[in-house]
């Protein structure tokens, strides 16, 4: 482990309507580490992840990935920098009408020529890459099926395969199991666990379930009202601190 792979420095996000979604969030994630971010709805978890992914520009602070500052980049430079970060969302976000393998191949788009891929021509050596990623999520048997025929858990694993085909250094997962049943959720979490410890990717995973955070996380960050409340190994977090994340926020938190 060569220090931090992703470094977030003093990230602050104030929306034009005045809402302060994020306030001075700083942390690091190392390669091979699975970091879980926990917190109540509207605590800024998703904003934090989107800032790291470069989907939103923080009003203050910066994000760097393996030493390169990502914040402030635009256009081609941003696209290239983004390729180091694979992103997984709550919904699988696959194109339902296309085959599973075609969806996974989309992960390779960033490093390929625009024109040839637009005609549906992928370089020959990308097919094995896509199949390999599909194999890593245990779904290579489904390669030629339409993506719309998959179950929720399978679709989510295919979206992870798509992110892997991108050959990223880190994986950012925004509530990847929020719309899955417990079995499928565990499968997806085990997969993320394996990707980080075996393949050495840094994984940041936003979750809603403290028990999943304790079971799968190397480190857990608790967030409340846009601030980092704690940042520690799961066994070092007292039940009291965990409870504090979810108390006193019900109802009122939307109207801040």
């Amino acid at each position: 482990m060569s220090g931090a792979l992703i470094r977030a420095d003093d990230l602050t996000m104030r929306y034009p309507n005045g809402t302060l979604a994020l306030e001075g969030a700083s942390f690091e994630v190392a390669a091979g580490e699975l970091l879980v971010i926990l917190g109540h709805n509207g605590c800024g978890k998703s904003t934090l992840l989107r800032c790291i992914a470069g989907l939103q520009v923080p009003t203050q602070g910066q994000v760097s990935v393996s030493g390169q500052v990502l914040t402030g980049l635009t256009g081609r430079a941003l696209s290239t920098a983004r390729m180091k970060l694979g992103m997984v969302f709550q919904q699988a976000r696959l194109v339902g009408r296309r085959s599973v393998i075609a969806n996974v191949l989309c992960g390779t788009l960033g490093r390929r020529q625009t024109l040839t891929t637009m005609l549906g021509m992928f370089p020959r050596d990308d097919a094995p890459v896509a199949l390999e990623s599909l194999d890593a999520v245990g779904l290579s048997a489904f390669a030629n099926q339409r993506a719309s025929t998959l179950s929720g858990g399978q679709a989510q694993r295919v979206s992870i395969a798509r992110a892997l085909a991108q050959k990223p250094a880190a994986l950012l997962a925004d509530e990847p199991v929020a719309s899955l049943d417990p079995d499928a959720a565990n499968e997806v979490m085990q997969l993320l666990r394996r990707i980080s410890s075996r393949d050495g990717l840094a994984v940041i995973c936003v979750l809603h379930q403290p028990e999943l955070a304790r079971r799968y996380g190397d480190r857990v960050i608790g967030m409340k009202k846009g601030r980092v409340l704690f940042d520690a190994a799961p066994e070092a977090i007292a039940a009291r601190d965990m409870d504090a994340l979810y108390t006193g926020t019900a109802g009122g938190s939307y109207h801040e």
Partner: protein
Amino acid sequence: MSDAAELRGLRPLQSGQGHEFASWRTGALRIAVGLGLILVVAQATYVVQARPQDLITGAHGMADILWRASPPDFGQFQHELWPAIETLDIAIFGTLWGVILALPLAIFAARNTSPSRSLYYLARGLIALCRAVPDLVWALLFVTAVGLGPFPGALAISVHSVGMLGRLFSEVIEDMDKGPVEALITTGATRLQVFSHAIVPIVLPSLLGITLYRLDENIRGSLVLGFVGAGGIGFELLTAMNLFQYQTVSLLLVITFVLVTITERLSAALRAKLA
């Protein structure tokens, strides 16, 4: 937020003392709407100078035309086959070019894919202009520009189709599932790659459905265009009317009916298959 506002709006209806007030108000509103509708219909009847009695006294005139128009002169069928094909081809050509021109315009005219704000307004304006002017007027313009025949008709159908298709295409693009688009942006894909790998596969079935429906509408549209000299069945219809050849007129109406019914069925069946 909006849920809360909706709930607040419902509250007077749910609470006891507000109920009577609310129902009195809705009752008054209904009466007002009813009176308003009657007023609208009354003024429309007055303005169009509706005279039902003329319809009755004119009945024998109509019977006379129907008598002179039957039976349809099927001997003319071979002669009218060519104009029928012309009508069909005006619609096919017009729809094709409508699609080719409408697609790039729609991409500029959809808020989520438009490259810049000024292009967005420009595309919107062009589409609105094509749509606002009826195809009959476009046909008149093109007849003066390129002369009589099917070509001005095909041009008119193209331009009008750009207006209709451009608007529907851009709406489909705006309403599409944005998930895969954002997912591909995060993989580092370029704008064009996102277009070809997320937007196109998602919207293609809807666009094809809209195009088939447009083709069906255009066939009906091109029937009329002949009246202003833009070829096809309409032109034959106008000529036969002017020469009092009512049996030819009825033959042309039969051909029209068959043409429209077949294309309507065909386009509906194809669209059902796409869905």
